[in-house]
């Protein structure tokens, strides 16, 4: 790395050096525990005979990758849709019990995947709470064992994505300037017009960001599928099986890299692609003003 030279904020040469020294442990840490391992991962994937071709050829690995992609995308979309209203309510309304609701939403954030998998088995397993309840109420066998199907995996993904989506959206909604909406209303805009022409354009970046976040969370989710997936397989489980079961480092490495690339690509596409699309469109004065107002 080039020796640091002062740039912004006056000619504080010593300050710049101090800053560099303060960040130096972090730099070394990242180099040793992120960059170097990732380079080893790339090397492992490149070492095997055509690991990428093996992974991308039709078969178990590709199915797992596609399953991961589709399931994560579906769960991210559904989670963000489910979270819109709760995030708005938590951000903008004041009512008794608000803090409790918010704390409940935040609780699953630190649950590991296996715990979520167990909760799914408890609720929707072969003798889960919901099937038992249904049987007690109606006397019919319904929903037993759903936890082990792709639908069960989807619900489990929702379980840990909804809290993530609610909390990121809430932060964005709190910065949304309510006056704009009110002004639109006084100018005679209908509820639908306000939603489509004021709220959605302003909140689009937050929506895309929360989509990217929830998508990344479920792409890497490993514990849930480990507990729940039976015939249906997702990429992290295949990585684990290849690594520990068959010591097939090349295939595991290739799967890891493809998983990471897909996640990062989705992130860039959603966050930056959307940004570019927005700028290319007719950035109205109101929207510009609102955007600058929304970011103090």
């Amino acid at each position, binding site marked *: 790395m080039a020796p640091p030279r002062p740039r912004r904020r006056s000619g504080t040469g010593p300050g710049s050096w101090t800053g560099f020294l303060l960040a130096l442990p972090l730099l070394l840490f990242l180099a040793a525990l992120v960059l170097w391992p990732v380079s080893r991962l790339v090397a492992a994937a490149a070492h095997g005979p055509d690991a990428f071709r093996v992974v991308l050829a039709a078969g178990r690995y590709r199915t797992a990758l596609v399953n991961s992609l589709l399931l994560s995308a579906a769960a991210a979309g559904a989670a963000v849709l489910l979270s819109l209203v709760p995030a708005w309510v938590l951000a903008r309304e004041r009512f008794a019990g608000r803090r409790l609701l918010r704390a409940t939403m935040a609780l699953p954030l630190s649950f590991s995947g296996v715990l979520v998998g167990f909760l799914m088995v408890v609720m929707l397993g072969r003798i889960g709470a919901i099937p038992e309840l249904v049987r007690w109420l109606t006397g019919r066998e319904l929903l037993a064992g759903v936890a082990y199907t792709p639908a069960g995996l989807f619900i489990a993904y929702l379980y840990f994505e909804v809290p993530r989506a609610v909390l990121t959206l809430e932060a964005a909604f709190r910065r949304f300037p309510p006056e704009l909406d009110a002004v639109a209303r006084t100018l005679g805009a209908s509820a639908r017009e306000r939603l489509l022409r004021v709220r959605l354009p302003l909140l689009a*970046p937050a929506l895309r960001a929360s989509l990217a976040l929830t998508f990344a969370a479920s792409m890497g989710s490993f514990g849930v599928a480990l507990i729940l997936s039976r015939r249906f397989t997702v990429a992290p489980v295949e990585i684990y099986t290849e690594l520990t079961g068959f010591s097939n480092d090349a295939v595991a490495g290739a799967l890891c890299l493809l998983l990471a690339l897909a996640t990062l690509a989705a992130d860039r596409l959603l966050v930056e692609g959307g940004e570019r699309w927005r700028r290319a469109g007719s950035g109205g004065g109101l929207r510009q003003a609102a955007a600058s107002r929304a970011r103090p």
Partner: protein
Amino acid sequence: MRLPTHSPRLARRLGIAWTALVAAMLAAPIAVAIAGAFSRSEWYGLRSEGAPVQGTAALFVYVLGLWGHNLLRSAQIVAVVTPLALLLGAPAAYAFRRLPFPGCRWLEAAAVAPLAVPGIVLAVALIEAAGGAPRFALLAAGHLVYTVPLVVRTVGNALQGHDPQLEDAARTLGAGRLAIVRRLVVPLLAPALVVSALLVLAVSWGEFNVSFLLATPRVQTFPAALYLTYTTNSFPVAAAATLIFLLPVIPVVAAIQALGGEELQRGAQP
């Protein structure tokens, strides 16, 4: 003039009801699982554990006997990872905001990048790079990779909320660099530092990907043990283990809430 900035009453009520419903659906499985730890355990105990576990107290004693060393291991990891994550992340976050140097934006982006990468990928990468290293060190490293970004982001966001002129003022009043840090920066950042520590604690306590991939029979964290208990033990044992796992999480999450943790995480958009 008052602008109509509030939602109509009916929409407000429906919104709150929907929020409560979503929260209830998130809470229900936890409640059922916890109730399971207090269900009649004799039957399960005799039938599937091979150990005559009688009553709730005996169930918890049995579970602690099974997984006590994993609990201890997790506590050790958390105790090592939390201060290290703060020491690595907080000074760097301060440098990024107050003492910028060439390339610091790039470094900051790299520091929070692990949050956008699927958890299992960096775990596998660590194994590829240092599979032979001592397991405890490797585990701690894996937890650090995912917790340092949280510190960098939380402290960075907190610093953005404070006026840098305070430090300039202190300097013009003759305070030395150390005095400024000790008497101005650290007190101002105290809530953010506490929130960071709690976040690190919660994440490290619940971390599974790295823990499970690196687990050996002797060095195994509690979440990795949870997997074993879910796949091998009876329901009350699994439920009791879950409750033991949750016990530290609930106060930590409540404390993060009370200290305004979400507000500090507002840069969460990757």
